[in-house]
């Protein structure tokens, strides 16, 4: 079946898989940071991504610029995330570890309805940015520019994130808090504030994922659920708490879904769950996960 397919179609499928996977990476990396830092599985992760999509809709309608739109989405929703952590999650630390998870679950039910009240039931359209319309032609390959943008933009974000975590003071503190928050606290750092910042960063990444997805499908109140599921699957595959895992896992799942769509379209969604099941069988901690974290 593969053999009578022209090579450029295969490459194109891989390309689309990488673009899809890049969005998965954005979603999963945020989830991983939050889990690594706070031990919280954020059930409302996709919900925040949805808020990112609505934020970009608002910002683009007001400013006309997609760039401003994305920036606003990240900043505004990131702040909302920080506020959420501060007001709703912080009171739960130290108690039953399942409580934060349950709280985020409650948010994932309530917030979409709130959006329906504010923005109505019909989704909001977001146009593709003019700057990235059209396609780049490389021989027989026609690569849509927006997809190229997604791939390179995500790459840039991930590199920035890595640099931030590795080189900056705040990044170092964040990493240390992931390892041993007690020790960090003894050394005089206000760990509580670090947690809020970390959560906000994770949410910001989710919002980015949602904002970038918005032109492809319109901002709808119920779009978050699938995004949360994807983030979960990728995180299990990549390894809980591992940023590298989120990246590799995200791209891998993106490509798997793309290839499956090509061969047997109706299995596309199930395929990522199959991947997850297989990883659980042969390497339970995930590709890059640490033993003991699971």
């Amino acid at each position, binding site marked *: 079946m593969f053999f009578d397919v022209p090579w450029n179609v295969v490459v194109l499928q891989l390309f689309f898989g990488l673009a899809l996977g890049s969005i998965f990476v954005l979603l999963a990396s945020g989830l991983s940071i939050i*889990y690594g830092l706070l031990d919280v599985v954020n059930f409302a992760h996709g919900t925040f991504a949805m808020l990112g999509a609505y934020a970009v809709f608002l910002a683009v309608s007001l400013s006309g610029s997609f760039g401003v739109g994305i920036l606003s989405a990240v900043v505004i929703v990131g702040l909302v995330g920080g506020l959420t952590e501060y007001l709703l999650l912080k*009171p739960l630390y130290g108690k039953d*570890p399942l409580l934060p998870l349950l709280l985020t679950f*409650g948010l994932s039910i*309530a917030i979409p309805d709130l959006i329906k009240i504010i923005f109505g039931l019909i989704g909001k359209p977001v146009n593709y940015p003019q700057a990235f319309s059209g396609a780049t032609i490389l021989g027989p390959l026609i690569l849509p520019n927006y997809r190229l943008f997604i791939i390179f933009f995500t790459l840039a974000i991930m590199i920035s994130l890595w640099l931030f975590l590795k080189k900056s003071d705040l990044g170092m503190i964040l990493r240390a808090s992931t390892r041993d928050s007690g020790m960090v606290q003894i050394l005089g750092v206000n760990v509580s504030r670090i947690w809020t910042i970390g959560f906000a960063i994770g949410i910001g990444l989710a919002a980015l994922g949602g904002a970038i997805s918005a032109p492809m499908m319109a901002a709808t109140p119920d779009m978050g659920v699938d995004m949360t599921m994807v983030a979960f*699957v990728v995180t*299990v595959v990549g390894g809980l708490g591992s940023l590298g895992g989120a990246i590799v896992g995200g791209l891998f799942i993106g490509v798997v879904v793309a290839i499956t769509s090509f061969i047997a379209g109706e299995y596309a969604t199930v395929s990522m769950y199959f991947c*997850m099941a297989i990883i*659980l069988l042969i390497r339970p901690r995930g590709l890059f996960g640490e033993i003991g974290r699971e």
Partner: protein
Amino acid sequence: MEGRETERKAELEKMLQDTEPKPKTTIVWGTGLVLLVLPFIISAPLATEILIWGIFGLGFNLLLGYTGVLSFGHAAYFGLGAYSCGLALRYWQASIWTGLLLGIVSSMILACFIGALAIRKRGVYFAMISLAFGQMLYFLALSPLKQITRGEDGLTHIPMLQILSISLNRPRPLYYFVMVITVLMLYLTWRILQSPFGKLLQAFRENEERAKACGFNTTRVKFLSLVLSALYGGLAGALNTIYLGYVPLSTLFWLTSGTMVMMTILGGKGTFLGPLIGAGVFLFLQNTISLLTPRWELFVGAIFVFIILLFPAGIMGTLRDKYTSYRMVKLKKQIESSGDSI
């Protein structure tokens, strides 16, 4: 002097034991009465649903409230129980009892499978994995297994059933049939909790690490708990099929799992009647609010967040804690008044 000390010790122990809430006869009779008259207070279909979710919750609570394992994909057991029963009723003209049995057994087998794969994982990790498995089952039923499950349409043409020549198509007889089973399951649950296994579960609930240190095989306990909870889930699913006469695809959807979690937390995890109360309150709220506004999810979600923040022990849990602390205060007064000091 020593004799008096042992006597005193025994007295104190007895007082301590008295502070533990026991199934009081009033509660038992009260529950029984409520169950009997429920279909006259609220609609019979709603009452039946509350009981079905209550049974589902009894099992789920054993896993979450007592063993401390959160499964976010329990819809898989509910749905599998529903479909197995439905398929048996429709294609093999099976009797009610065969249908129910099939629902129970198929769910338990699925639990063995998932348990073998994932039960060793940490709490939050298992929650995620169970959710993903639940989703996988949903998507399998939606598309690849469409021939069997009829996908989006759900399973229809399930024949009307009879018990002792009373047709189960009328709402009241159907309710009382489900009620009898509910009472049986309540009794079964009570027996389980009184048994050594049940005591072990309660030890788990208090402190898993310590139970492990005492030499108990925690993995085995969690596994057994999972399979047991699947029994309830499968039964509830099969009952749901009988109640509806139809198996909708939504029985496998993640929201079914999520609803179960919300009901259990709301009612109070780790309490005996919690799941039943939780199911009642949740469904009643959902029903009532949706009469006033289509945005009921906002209110239910917000109430849930509120409960998590302020009353994480749920309705029954908070009541129990209040009762226990009240008893503790009384005990303290008793001891102080009898001359000893703490």
